[in-house]
């Protein structure tokens, strides 16, 4: 398995979350960066608009969904954060781009 590209990724960078910059340490997932920044809510549910965030942390529960670079329903706990990423708190099922 290839090790992370330590040579190409910067040690630290920022991503944009709901329009605000959030710092990332290289190697962190979107969920890791959000939690490190004190952001616990990744989405609001479809029916009850209940806030949700990281639960299982390993890609099983699909609770930490965010809209990542325009794609809704991305598991923040699995998605490596990359420079320039745009993340939005997801409302309901998000939007499907046509």
């Amino acid at each position, binding site marked *: 398995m290839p090790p992370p590209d330590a040579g190409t990724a910067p040690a630290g960078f920022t991503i944009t979350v709901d329009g605000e910059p959030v710092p990332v*340490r290289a190697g*962190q997932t979107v969920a890791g960066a959000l939690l490190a920044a004190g952001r616990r809510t990744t989405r609001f549910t479809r029916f009850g608009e209940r806030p949700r965030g990281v639960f299982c942390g390993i890609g099983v529960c*699909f*609770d930490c969904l965010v809209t990542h670079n325009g794609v809704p329903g991305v598991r923040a706990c699995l998605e490596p954060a990359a420079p320039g990423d745009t993340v939005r708190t997801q409302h309901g099922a998000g939007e499907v781009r046509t």
Partner: protein
Amino acid sequence: MTGRAAGRLVVVGAGPAGLAAAVAAADAGATVTVVDLGQRPGGQYLRQPLVAGVPPARHSRRAETLLGRALAHRRITFLARHQVWWAGTDATPADGAAPPAPGAGPAGGAPAPGAGPHGGTSAPGGVTLRLLGPAGPVTLTAPAVVLAPGGYDRVVPFPGWDLPGVVTAGAAQALAKGQGVLVGRRVLVAGTGPFLLTVAAGLARAGARVAAVVEAAPLRRWARQPRAVVGAPGKLVEAARYLATLRRYGVPVRRGRAVTEVTPDGDGLRATIRRVDAGWRPAGGGTRTARVDAVCVGHGFTPSIELAVALGCATRVDPADGSPVVAVDGLGRSSVPGVLVAGEATGVGGAELAISTGELAGLAAAHRLGLLDDAALARTAAPALRRAAGQRRFAAALHRAYPVPDGWTGWLRPETVLCRCEEVTAGELRGAVRRYGVDDVRALKLVTRIGMGPCQGRVCGRAATCLLAAASGRDQPPEAFANRQIVMPVPLGAVAEEGTPQ
């Protein structure tokens, strides 16, 4: 990418069981591809830091050695960040041992439509796995596979368990170990089982203020398990080390108590901690609350059996903890020839047992591939078989000491969310039983949508099954939620592209 695996064996899961299987089979001469969803091999137990500066966690020497050997092995290739979403056997007429002919096509000789009655005479000639990775879909076909998918935290529902900041114990550990991220500054670790101590100690070392470990089981149960404990002295040393760490950081361990409710409190959470009896019913008195940033919860583990179920492997209920597991023989051979299963999917027992069962499955796979004869298999398997027996005894004793009795159902309110994906409440489950006479899992899913969301019932299935049994008065097979032909959600585009016409 479509085609046959570079080698003859595919291992699903790069945790302790998968690594051990890969090394054992590769040592016997097999060429092995290990696929895993994670970014780096190790699984949950041997999770490797993804972020520079995060100190690697300490593991058993056997596990560390194993990881090193697997990474260095010439005949082992890793396929990281690959999610298996489909598993199928290739039915071939009569002789099941024959792998599909080369160039059998991208479907890998999948059963032709209308191939005729399946009288049970055809046996699988190989296994086809469809995966999705960062670069797109991949199809692997192999005459034998070892499934070592592990498991995930089991959490029983309680009011507020779906609030942000309530996380599984495993999530808290994964974030700390892998990324140096704390789920909160002040945290509570609650549930049952020795894993809570591991997680709490790790969080304390990483800088969290652990308000307490809230353990539902009373201490005295251990006194009844002398034989198993004597058989695993290393485990006692490990537990003592975690307890010493917790003492050092001033973390109290409160036994016979449970977090039965969490509510939002400003920026944080307020957890209700109640004294509970052996059946987890509130025991009266001693109710207190704690204000924390996060509550890390674990009530044991749920084995991940859906891949094996999709391949048609027989399952059974593990008497040790009531979990549905894959039925295997002592060497990890399932009811489907060529499908071997190791680790937690065959019974929750921890990393050391996973290594033993992984090694055995790897050897059995090599035997199946013709790389070991009967005598060589018996000889090479003997040490791991002996280890596994003792480890299994210890695991069973742990399950007896840390059971999950049904009293948690009394913590629920009608409006407590049970199915987190579809937001179905406990009251709706009971209403479906009362109003419509729903009395099995299929009808429950269809009528209420419990377990129909993206997690496919992984998180709530066990709890829903338990509540349904209580409400309907009918026993429910615990594996009823594990039948997922689509093993993990996958974009339709990948499904459509898969194996474009010949």
